[in-house]
């Protein structure tokens, strides 16, 4: 019973909001807020599954590639920066500068330099998503308990073994925190990059719908993006729970 109540609430609140939206929009006489039923109908016609191949999959592919690249580069670059104070000092002004650039401002030069293809979009996503992963990897590594480092030294755990068995696992809770921030950034950048010089993708579809006054279509695209972000986060949390099971256990035990 005690578990059932929160779960019931979690389901009831969104349902209630949808009902309120549905009732209100059914009688609202405005062009820009079509009845919810129209949007849902449009959603079914558009996304189940007519445009999955033409728009959803390309969007997801870019998102996946950009995100994966960011995680890889962020962790790989974070390791030497986390381990060496000198490297950290040397890199910090550059990192702070690059990270301070508002991402959409990078689109014009990216288009000029790389073109308008998928490569550009993937790189834009990666460029933005890399910072939270990088900074959290560095923090995670510099924050490793000195006792743990002493333990590694006493027992002669060095080099790659130390990296794989001690440094990365110890930093992993923080790396995951960075990856989670990056995931929501990836969705944002995916949409933004598709709204500029694009021929497909969910972001492109939303903008095109608006330009052609296909308002229910526009809303259906936004609905899809919301659902997508929600599901991605759910998947992420699921993976994190598995990988960091020890972390939750250790914190509960402490």
């Amino acid at each position: 019973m005690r578990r059932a109540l929160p779960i019931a609430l979690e389901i009831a609140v969104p349902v209630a909001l949808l009902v309120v939206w549905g009732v209100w929009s059914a009688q609202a006489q405005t062009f820009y807020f079509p009845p919810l039923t129209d949007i849902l109908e449009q959603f079914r016609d558009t996304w189940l599954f007519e445009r999955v191949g033409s728009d959803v999959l390309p969007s997801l592919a870019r998102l996946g590639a950009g995100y994966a690249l960011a995680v890889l580069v962020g962790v790989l670059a974070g390791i030497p920066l986390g381990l060496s104070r000198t490297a950290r000092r040397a890199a910090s002004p550059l990192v702070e500068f690059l990270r301070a650039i508002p991402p959409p401002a990078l689109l014009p030069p990216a288009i000029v330099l790389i073109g308008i293809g998928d490569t550009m979009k993937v790189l834009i996503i990666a460029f933005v998503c890399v910072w939270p992963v990088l900074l959290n990897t560095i923090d995670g590594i510099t924050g490793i308990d000195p006792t743990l480092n002493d333990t590694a030294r006493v027992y002669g755990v060095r080099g790659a073994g130390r990296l794989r068995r001690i440094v990365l696992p110890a930093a992993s809770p923080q790396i995951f925190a960075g990856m989670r921030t990056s995931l929501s950034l990836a969705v944002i950048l995916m949409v933004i990059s598709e709204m500029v010089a694009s021929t497909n993708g969910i972001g492109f579809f939303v903008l095109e719908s608006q330009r052609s006054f296909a308002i229910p279509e526009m809303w259906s695209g936004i609905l899809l993006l919301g659902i997508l972000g929600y599901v991605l986060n759910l998947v992420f949390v699921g993976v994190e729970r598995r990988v960091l099971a020890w972390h939750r256990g250790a914190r509960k035990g402490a």
Partner: protein
Amino acid sequence: MLEIGGLAKSYGTVEAIREVSFAISEREFVCVVGPSGCGKTTLLKCIAGLLAPSGGHVELRGERVTGPPEEMALVFQEYSRSLLPWLSVRGNVTLPLRHKKLAKDERARLVEEAVDAVGLTRFIDRYPWELSGGMQQRVAIARALAYQPQILLMDEPFASVDAQTRGDLEDLILEVRERYGVTILFVTHDIDESVYLADRIVVLGPSPTSVKEILPVELPHPRDQVDTKELPEFARLRAHVYRLIKRERAAAAK
């Protein structure tokens, strides 16, 4: 086998250890006891090769210690920070053996034997945070034993467990010493503990540290928490060490 000669350690202008010299012979159990904050941990870290002394030397079998030697294992006071929470008991005990050139079954045998020696065979696939504090420290001891050191350094290993567990662990370490024939250097601030365990006691003065007295403990083996502590010799030694440390503290306060 271990010789500490004129060891000194300063941090900048702050003198932590003035001059410490003593030697430990093969299979001996030496306790270093001193008032709180007298630089016991610093001393131990210098001996373990984790800290470079500012003067003097540490020699293990005639070879100068400049980094953690392979023949030495260290059990830290903070077991919860020195064990790896992402590894099971087996994983933790195996860790220092991974880079030693050992056949797989030989390695497994060493690990199982060490876990058995500390009485945790039933818990070998559990995680450290699923175990009590005393059991976690047993894991740390097993890890040190599996490493097959010739000398085992222990830094106030039982300072953060309750009195009952402490007695059990003291007996465990005496037992393990018989079984593995290992030399032990044991640092503590607990006078009773030092008298109960040691073959010889090194009494340190307050910071900046130097050796006040080295006294042999001629209590019969095997020792027993009740019988040994009833002996007049135990009481005499305990009182003697107590006065040494107390007098030092009074002198330091002036």
